[in-house]
């Protein structure tokens, strides 16, 4: 008997920290010390708040550094960090720190730049609430059918949050398709997708197409 895939959904609330930065040095120091929930918030917020637009500014750090602080080259470097390569928030945080440190070494004058009062970077934590839904898939056909109608919050949870925040090493769909269905080829195709370059609706369509094309469906 195959273990069924139980769909969950995830709603989120923003928790304020009172931590703010008005210079690059302050930003760097805070990135080193804030909780992983802050790193997660500022690298994933746009995915849900502006879900219908693509391409999206991929993270808040890049946006603030480029558009508020006025360091366009560093902003571009931060924006191009390939989030899908990092298996944990810890490793993603280390990469962001490394990019800012290297930039400051090469451009020491950037450390003296500051923003006006009111334009500071405010650190926010993402608090997730994960609810089981009534949707359960026993095979790939049922999985595709449910993916067509489930909320984008559910897709978001199983694709983004599970892999990076819960450190499962892969998205939930690929894990189930490989372990419960035994279709490693399909699981690998889904793993290779870079979900950060899709809108959530486009990601839904792509997942459904890949699953429906599988010989096991």
């Amino acid at each position, binding site marked *: 008997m195959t273990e069924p895939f139980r769909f969950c959904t995830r*709603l989120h609330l923003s928790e304020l920290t009172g931590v703010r930065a008005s210079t690059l040095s302050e930003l760097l120091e805070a990135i080193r010390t804030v909780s992983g929930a802050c790193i997660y918030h500022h690298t994933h917020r746009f995915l849900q708040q502006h879900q219908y637009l693509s391409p999206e500014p991929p993270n808040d750090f890049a946006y603030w550094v480029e558009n508020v602080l006025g360091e366009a080259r560093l902003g571009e470097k931060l924006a191009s960090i390939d989030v899908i390569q990092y298996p944990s928030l810890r490793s993603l945080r280390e990469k962001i720190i490394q990019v800012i440190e290297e930039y400051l070494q090469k451009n020491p004058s950037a450390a003296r730049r500051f923003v006006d009062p009111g334009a500071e970077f405010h650190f926010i934590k993402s608090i997730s609430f994960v609810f089981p839904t009534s949707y359960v898939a026993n095979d790939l056909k049922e999985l595709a059918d449910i993916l067509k109608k489930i909320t984008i919050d559910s897709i978001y949870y199983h694709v983004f949050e599970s892999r990076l925040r819960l450190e499962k090493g892969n998205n939930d769909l690929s894990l189930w398709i490989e372990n419960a269905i035994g279709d490693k080829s399909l699981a690998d195709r889904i793993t290779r997708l870079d979900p950060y370059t899709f809108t959530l609706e486009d990601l839904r369509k792509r997942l459904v197409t890949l699953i429906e094309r599988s010989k096991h469906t």
Partner: protein
Amino acid sequence: MGKLDDYIPIVGQAVIDDLRLAAEKLKGKTIQHVNSTAVGGGVAEILNRMVPMLVELGIDTKWDVIHGGMEFFSVTKKFHNALHGKQEDITQHDFDIFMDATRANINNLETRGDIVFIHDPQPIGLISKKTDNKWVWRCHIDVSNPNLAVWRFLRDFIDKYDSVVFSAPSFSQKLPVRQFLIAPSIDPLSDKNKDLPQETINSVLNKYGIDNSKPIITQISRFDRLKDPVGVIDAFLMVKKHVDCQLILAGGTAVDDPESVEVFAEVKEKAKQDSDIHILLMAQNDIEVNALQRASTVIIQKSLKEGFGLTVSEALWKGKPVVASAVGGIPLQIAHKYSGLLVHSVEGAAFALKQLLNAPDYARKLGENGREHIRNNFLLTRHLRDYLLLFLSLYHPENVVFF
């Protein structure tokens, strides 16, 4: 009043399903909201909508209002201005008046419920009635640069709450309690925001003697210095030199705002300079506000400080181009040059108004973008969802909560 299912055509089935999913986990809890006025102002408006919806979701919810005389509300108005960073002479006598009224409310107002939800500074002192239940303080004010004497006075109360809620990230301070970001919202089905037939709009214009053959610039706000109605007239007079248009300043007064009568008189005097300036002192009449917004060519919100600025959301929801100050929660609602124009001065406001009056296609595009942004982020259903999650967070301190 809208039932939850009535919102499905506007926000989609999934959003309503999520509300029911979260509410299910709060079954059996009782919630008590407390604020200082049942009518007038954004807080009362939101509670009037929110409380019935929480009840429909199966959560036992009550709403109580504290009492206070003119003296108390004069002091809380001073507090309000001082928290917004305005220079105010706050004396020990003011703090004594505040504490006297607080003690009276502690004695007379019954607090009950698993979660007591206190709105704004006026009822903040009720926290001394806290037992083993959960207490939340919701600050609707821009406290990014507060008067420190007032802020320190309030901190003695704030630190006793379980959680605090602010409307914008810049309002947060380092506090020993959890603090959450929850923006307020508008109700798309309320009298103030629902679609209106053209006849209704025309009849409201007729009632106030406004001829809509000229472009209309409107600011809807209480007559309050922080809304800068005098600055709006100054900006309008600059625009009027180049574009033949008219200005409507419309608003009412609230029982907890004694200063508004004085401001109204000043504005009325200044408006004598031009017969195209219409000053409308309105009793609470949401249909008329709705009609005036819909009849407008451009909406302005030139506040000096703003807790959030719900009139901006109302205008954007009606697809109107908006010129607004970049203060408080307004930048959350308007991305500059994408869903409206943000300004910092009278001159800037005048320039932005001229741009929009002279470029109707651009103005229309800003309005369309603004409407979608409000649909996704600032409608009552999102606000309700955030409150449900806030209530759940009181029992779950972790960053990822599994049910």
